[in-house]
Structures are given as structure tokens and as C-alpha cells.
């Protein structure tokens, strides 16, 4: 039984880590629209890490570090230069996705398959627990620490943060870069542990699911954790049913069932829900008066 639950939740680290990464920067007031593209580049990074060292952990580390570099780019363009976060997000999405597809065949001629997986207990692998720990950490940091407060205030009212002596730009830089790194880990994990190889556009919209989970979770760490569990369970059930040959709709639609669920849930949440916990200064560059 517990093994079945574990296999249903196998996509949890993918959705959870990328949603957490996106949440981190959104909490401080910066959109990361590029989750899908950053995950795509994370898949390349993870596979390269494994290809060169034979270690799954180094694969994830590659994802973390390389995507922090993309995070630096995103932070520089949106936080320092104050360019439009949505437009820059699109830019980096396509750039990262295309670059991953372009570089993989050059760096790994002929391609390869990862023969290894992360170990764990009861079918839950170590990254599953790592993701839970990171969520708990995020919850604690946001709620009870000075740093967490600095992040929240920077996202809610940067002018107040500035008066209180919080360095808004620095806070936003750190959250964007760290958040991008987490998204990189998510992509790397998807590539080395779940799909175990490279395909162009293999992230298949999961980055957008993660983005939706942030809205669905109303910008709270616990909400996003719940949303990640829920939507990764949908993906897991869909995958298992497809493998088992149980199709109540044609297979072409099975693949997008989680996406359809996101559309419906997000719309209903918008129609029925009270106004959300969206950070007030989300998407607005901070300019000192």
C-alpha cells in the first residue's frame, strides 16, 4: 500500500521543488515565469553532471549551480535593471529551453540513459524527504525568522522594508537566485531519476503546473506543499493508469489530464475564492522614491 502511495507521489519532488523555487522569488516580489525553461535546462545540467561523474547527487548539484547562473541573469535583468518581469520571463524560458535542446546533442553525442536511481525507504526516495524538509524549512523561515520577514516585507511593501533598514534589492537577488537553483534541482531530478534520459521539451508543461500551484497555494508554504502533493498525485495516477493500460479517455488526453485539472481548479479557485495572499508588490520593480 505504502509503495503504491510512494509511486503515485513520484512526481512530488518535480512539482514541489520548482513550485517552492518560484514561491521564494514571488514572496519577495519577483515573478519567475521561466520555470518551464529553467527546468528544461535543469534536465540538461543533471544529465551532464551524471554523465561526467556517475553520481546522481552531482547531477542535482549541477542543476542547482547552473540554474543559479540563470537566476543571476534573471535577477540582474528584473531586479537591478527593473525590466518587465513577464517579458524577461518569456525570454529566458525560450532561451533556456532552446539552449538545452541545442547543447545536449553537442555535449553528449549519441545520448545516453541513466542506469541508476536514488534509493530510499518504502519506495519514497531521498529527494522526496529532502523536498519535505525544504518545505518545512521554508515554512519556519517565512514565519519565524528575521530573514523570512525581510522577504515577505520586500514582497508586500518594499518602501516600508527600505525604511526598516531591509535591503530590498539584495533580498530579491538572493531569493531569485536561490529559487532558480531549486527549479534546477527539480529539472535535474526529473531527468536523472524519473525519465532517465533527454528528450526535447521533456518538461511537458510541468513547469506551468508548478507555476499554477503557487497561485493555487495562495503564496503560503503549506498551501504550495498541499498543491504540489495534490497535482503530483494527479500526474502519478495518470502515469500509472497509462502504464497499466487503463484508459477512460484516449491516451493523447491522459497526458494532459493534470493540465486540465489545473485549468479547472485555478478557474474555480478564482471564481469562488476570497482574494488571495498575493504579495502586493509582486511584479513591480522597486524604485526608491
Amino acid at each position: 500500500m505504502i509503495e503504491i502511495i510512494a509511486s503515485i507521489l513520484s512526481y512530488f519532488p518535480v512539482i514541489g521543488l520548482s513550485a517552492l523555487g518560484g514561491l521564494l522569488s514571488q514572496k519577495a516580489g519577483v515573478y519567475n515565469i521561466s520555470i518551464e525553461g529553467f527546468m528544461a535546462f535543469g534536465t540538461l545540467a543533471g544529465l551532464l553532471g551524471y554523465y561526467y561523474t556517475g553520481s546522481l547527487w552531482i547531477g542535482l548539484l549541477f542543476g542547482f549551480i547552473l540554474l543559479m547562473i540563470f537566476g543571476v541573469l534573471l535577477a540582474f535583468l528584473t531586479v537591478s535593471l527593473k525590466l518587465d518581469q513577464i517579458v524577461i520571463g518569456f525570454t529566458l524560458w525560450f532561451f533556456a529551453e532552446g539552449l538545452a535542446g541545442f547543447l545536449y546533442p553537442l555535449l553528449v553525442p549519441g545520448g545516453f540513459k541513466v542506469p541508476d536511481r536514488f534509493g530510499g525507504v518504502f519506495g519514497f526516495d531521498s529527494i522526496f524527504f529532502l523536498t519535505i524538509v525544504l518545505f518545512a524549512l521554508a515554512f519556519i523561515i517565512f514565519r519565524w525568522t528575521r530573514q523570512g520577514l525581510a522577504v515577505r516585507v520586500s514582497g508586500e511593501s518594499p518602501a516600508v522594508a527600505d525604511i526598516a533598514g531591509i535591503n530590498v534589492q539584495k533580498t530579491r537577488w538572493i531569493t531569485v537566485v536561490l529559487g532558480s537553483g531549486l527549479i534546477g534541482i527539480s529539472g535535474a531530478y526529473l531527468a536523472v531519476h524519473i525519465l532517465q534520459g533527454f528528450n526535447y521539451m521533456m518538461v511537458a508543461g510541468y513547469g506551468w503546473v508548478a507555476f499554477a500551484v503557487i497561485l493555487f497555494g495562495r503564496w503560503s508554504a503549506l498551501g504550495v506543499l498541499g498543491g504540489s502533493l495534490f497535482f503530483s498525485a494527479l500526474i502519478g495516477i495518470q502515469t500509472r493508469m497509462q502504464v497499466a493500460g487503463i484508459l477512460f479517455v484516449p491516451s493523447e488526453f491522459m497526458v494532459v489530464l493534470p493540465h486540465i485539472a489545473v485549468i479547472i481548479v485555478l478557474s474555480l479557485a478564482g471564481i469562488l475564492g476570497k482574494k488571495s495572499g498575493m504579495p502586493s508588490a509582486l511584479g513591480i520593480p522597486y524604485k526608491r522614491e
Partner: protein
Amino acid sequence: MNVDLNKLKSWALEVAVIIASIVLVLVITISISGLDLGRAFGVFISSTFGSTTGLLFVLRRATPLIIAAVGLSVAFTSSFWNIGAEGQIALGGIATAGVCLFTGLTGGIAIAVAFIASFLFGAGYAGVAGYLKAKWDVNDIVITMLMSLVAIALLNYLIAKPWYWWEGPSGLYSRTAPIPASEQMPALAYPLNSMFIVAIAIAIGAHYFLSKTQIGYKIRMVGDNKMASMVSGINPIKTMTLAALISGGICALGGTALVLGEYFRLQGGITGMYGFFAIPIALFCRNKPAVIPFGAFLVAIVMEGALSLTSVGMSNRLSDVMLGTLFIIIFLPDLIKALKRRLS
């Protein structure tokens, strides 16, 4: 005629920077792929603007780009982020193929009905997302993006199962039967099709609609400042939904262009990233439908040239890297301005 010389200068500079950057990216990607620079550029030029056939191929490729980018510009003007043009093109293709293959209509009537059906399909798609955004502030980016994955799944399903055309044991692709010659848009000069003229007409029509009509004015008002538009008596919910409907409808006609003007059937991958390439075109042309054909022409050169380079051993992902790069280049002027502000 009163031409603003400074404006013209800055525009010319922008175009020059874009072309220089495209060349630079090509040099870098060709070099790291280990190809011969001179030969690769020769192929690139002769297959795009260096020959009549190349030029016609570029114009054909520009056709769905013009239509989709014009469609997006209507939504963007109202500040509705419709990024689902890819899915709207898929739906438009489905509607078009459905009408021409399965309704029993023939000739010009079939073409006319296909255009209408395509428009309605796309309008429905984007209209739902537009209404959700306008009325309840449901995130438009996520909804339109995810809906396009669903639309493409529908296309893949139709060509694989109910609309699958069995062409004997040699058949390789999942695709529908060909559309009869009487229901195809007439050719201009092979490979260019009269859909190109339709695309230009749509651009001109949209330009007139956005800049000269009252509804167009309302759409611009809502996009500029929702609060101010409400004060002046405009209903932002109605207006944004209308912009979304029109936007989705026009984008879907891009699918009609592909089915009736290029492939003459529905097949996998027909949307070809046109819907995504249309986003930077619309943004770069500042959502001005009259300028969009020129932007689309430039992007079509890049797409066509990148494709031609695969024949000399370039990765077929080049055009996607170019897409990301194009986006960055497009914002170079803003970038330079922002950098200057920082340095001073």
C-alpha cells in the same frame, strides 16, 4: 510628409542592432557546431532572401506568423496576456480540416465556412480565458498556456484515431486525408499561397480596428489604465473579453493558413512553434498590426535560414535558440536605457 527624423533614426538603429545580433548568434552557433562559416552563411542567404524561391518560402513562413502576431497584438493591447496562440493555431487547423473534409461542403463555400469555424474555435478558446481574467482575475498566462497543451493533445488525437487517413503500408505519418484542390486557397507563385494576401489584409484590418474604431479605442484605454477606463464609462470586463475573443479568432486563422495554404491537410507538428514565435514579434512591433508584417518577415528569415542549415549538419534546435535570442535582442534598447540609467 512630416517624418520625425529622430524616431526614424532610433528605429533604424534598432533594426541594425537586431540584424547584427542575429548574425553574431549565427556565427557563434555555427562555430561551436564545427561547421564552415562561409558555406553555412551561403546556404542561409541563398535559401532566404538570396533567391526568388527562397524569398517565396520566407513569405510563406511569414504568413502564419503575421496572422498570429496580429491576433496577439489585439489581446496584448488590452493587457490580456494571451500566450496560447500555439493552441489557437491548432484549434483553427482542426476546425478548418474538419469543415473541408467532413461536412460535405465543397469549393468556395467550404473555404468560407472553414474561416468562420476556425475564427469561432479560436475565439471560444481565448474568450473563456479572457472572461476569467477580466471578471475574476484568474491568471491568464497559465490558463492560455496550459489550454494550448490541451488543444495540441486534441490535434494529436484526431490525426491518430478518428481522422487518421490510411494510405497503405507505406504510410509513415499520422495525418488526415488531403484537402481537395477545389477547397485549397489558390497558389500565387509556388510555394507562396494567396493566404499571404489574407494575412496582410488581416494586419491592415486590425490596424484600422485598433487605431480608428471606437471599440479599438476602448481596448486601448482598458490596456493603458483599467481604472481610468472605468471612470470614463467603459466596461473593462466586456472590453477585455471582446479583445480576447477577437485575438483568439485571428490567431486561429493562422491554423487555417497552414491547412489551406501550406500542408493541405492536418498533420502532427503543424503548429510548428509559430504561436510562440509570434509573441516576440507582437512585442517588438509594440503591438502595432501595421508594423507586424515586417517583424514577421525578419523572424521568418531566421526560421527558414535555421532550417536550411540543418541540411549542412546544424542542430534542428537552432531556431529555438534563435527564438530565445531574438527575445533578448528585442529588449536590447530597453536594456541599454536601463544600463545607462544605472551608470549615470
